[in-house]
């Protein structure tokens, strides 16, 4: 039983990290008043781009950079459409999902099911030999530690800096921010692209580290779960950590149970993350209706300066 729990806990970060990074991307974007529903597509494209880069002879870090860049480019398409051309955010997000999945399919044609050597765990020397804590905390790959760093950076940037204040003002009340001399277009575009970079990172993590292979549809709804997680986290980075660990824990337990060879209906087991996401959306809605609504007030609304009221 101990080995079961230990193996499970060791694998939790592997599942939690991509969700968490993508969720951070959603949060940064949403704080500027833009909901990018395209996460699923951005992750798909970046996951494919990462593996293709490696299979083309690139290094892992190079592949990561390519994936992040792809995330930025695809989110820039979304940003230019919604922020500059004022297209509907929901519809544009869905288009980005389709575009990302489509691009990943076209780009990754011929590269599916070809395993790669991904990021390996960092060598912390003797620390790794500590009981329990060693393998769990000091046995992860480098990207997990980068993720921790990213959470801290995002949390600090959004909530503690002047730029973060301006970013949040754009998401709460863009006309006020505009009057205060904040360039709403630039801030929103910037937030969308930074968010896209984070989602790209998350996608790359899936293929370069967690899966070490690329197959179509490998993102399997994680982009959507990340959005649900952001709602659950009430758009706050540190709360997203809690959520991501719960989700990562749930996802991680599925292969562990399968590995024991226990006779459980495997497809029902695989429904768990989706059902959990539903639960996470429903429970707060039922228990604390309306109270503590932290959603950025201008979320989903496009800003137009010369609009007459």
């Amino acid at each position, binding site marked *: 039983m101990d080995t079961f729990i230990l193996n499970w806990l060791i694998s939790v970060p592997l599942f939690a990290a991509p969700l968490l990074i993508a969720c951070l991307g959603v949060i940064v974007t949403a704080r500027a008043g833009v909901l990018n*529903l395209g996460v699923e597509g951005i992750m798909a494209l970046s996951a494919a781009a990462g593996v293709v880069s490696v299979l083309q002879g690139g290094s892992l870090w190079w592949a990561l950079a390519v994936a992040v860049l792809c995330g930025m480019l695809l989110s820039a*398409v979304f940003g230019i*459409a919604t922020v500059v*051309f*004022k*297209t*509907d955010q*929901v*519809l*544009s997000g*869905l*288009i*980005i*999902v*389709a*575009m990302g*999945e*489509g*691009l*990943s*399919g*076209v780009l990754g*044609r011929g590269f599916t099911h070809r395993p790669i050597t991904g990021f390996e765990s960092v060598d912390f020397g003797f620390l790794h030999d500590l009981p329990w804590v060693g393998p769990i905390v000091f046995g992860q790959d480098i990207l997990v530690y980068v993720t921790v760093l990213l959470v801290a950076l995002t949390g600090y940037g959004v909530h503690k800096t002047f730029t973060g204040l301006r970013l949040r003002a754009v998401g709460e009340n863009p006309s006020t921010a505009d009057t205060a001399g904040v*360039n709403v*277009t*630039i801030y929103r575009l910037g937030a969308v692209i930074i968010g896209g970079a984070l989602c790209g990172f998350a996608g790359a993590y899936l293929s370069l580290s967690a899966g070490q292979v690329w197959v*179509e549809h490998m993102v*399997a*709804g994680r982009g*959507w*779960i990340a*959005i*649900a997680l952001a*709602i659950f986290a009430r758009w706050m980075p540190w709360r997203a950590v809690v959520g991501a660990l719960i989700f990562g824990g749930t996802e991680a337990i599925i292969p562990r149970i399968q590995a024991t060879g226990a006779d459980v*209906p495997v*497809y*029902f087991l*695989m*429904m768990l993350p*989706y*059902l959990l*996401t*539903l639960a996470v*959306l*429903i429970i707060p*809605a*039922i228990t604390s*209706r309306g109270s503590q609504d932290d959603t950025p007030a201008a979320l989903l609304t496009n800003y*137009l*300066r*010369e*609009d007459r009221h």
Partner: protein
Amino acid sequence: MLDLFYLVSRQQVPAWLRLLTFVAGLSTGLLLCTVVLVLSGVSLSDAVNEFVYFVFFNEIGLAQTFTAFVPLALVGLAAAAAIKLRFWNIGVEGQMWVGAILATWVATYDIGPPWLRLVLMFVMAAVGGSLWIAVPAVLKLRFGVNEIITTLLLTYVAFLLVQHLLFGVWRDADTGFPASPAYEPGVEQLAKLGWGNLHQGVWVALGAGVIWWWLMSMSRFGFFMDAVGANAMAAKASGLPVVATIVGAVILSGGLAGVAGLVIVAGQEYRLTQHIAVGYTFSSIVIAFIARFNPIGCLVVALIVGGVYTAGDTLKVFYQLPSATITLLESIILLSLLVAEFFGRYHIGIRRKVPA
């Protein structure tokens, strides 16, 4: 630099401008699509040949296009019904799966007399789709849970349910493939019309379109839908049955999607497989938006998208292009159209320097 331009919303977009932006958006989209195809190794003449000539002007191709049209028309109507009321049904595929499961259940266990079997399959498919959308509908209307995510997540759940069945009780004993036993010809299959693979389902799609058109343009329910879609608050304050209208439209949406699942299993595949509903969600949105939720428009756009599907099948065989290519092309076209609308909705002014 960005301060150089300013925007003013137009109170009313003149018809010519709307047409112009549509044509411009479509042309841009088609151009971009051509670029994508050429970059993927399809020659220009082949692309034109496959996407225009074969699918619309060749008898075999047109029959395939019409066959693809049947489920597309149904999902397009399904998306239009719900999204018109600002209920984002992003779970059309899930509703198709559940519709197909219930229909297959009727077929596999020979429920009801043979002469009633198909009707029963239809009813169960519609019920299945409606049930699957009822969950997000209740969650949204009762608890305010965002339906975009719930409808979408339930698609994954539905697909896993299909896999559970296909790798379990329904696995074809003869072949061992993850597919349900074949439907019985004449009893559980929609009859072919003698033109390619086109089957009776086409009447269902056309009928649904016409009925939906009558509902929207003439009936009281259609008037309520217009009002609720345009401004639910004002509709409620005016004493209109807002919740009932939303529930009605959303249930119909799910039902139509369920039937779309049925026409594929009973008209094309003759069994439940793992591949029937893939890619339909986004197509349904494309169709609904390009048609601006107009039922007859949905039929027309669905036919065109059907042509794209047919061409995509050919390209898959000859160029090994993945089916995701179709989704990519659709997304490019829809985004181009959306962006083009901007130039109609706003008057763009250039900030004049005030003379010093």
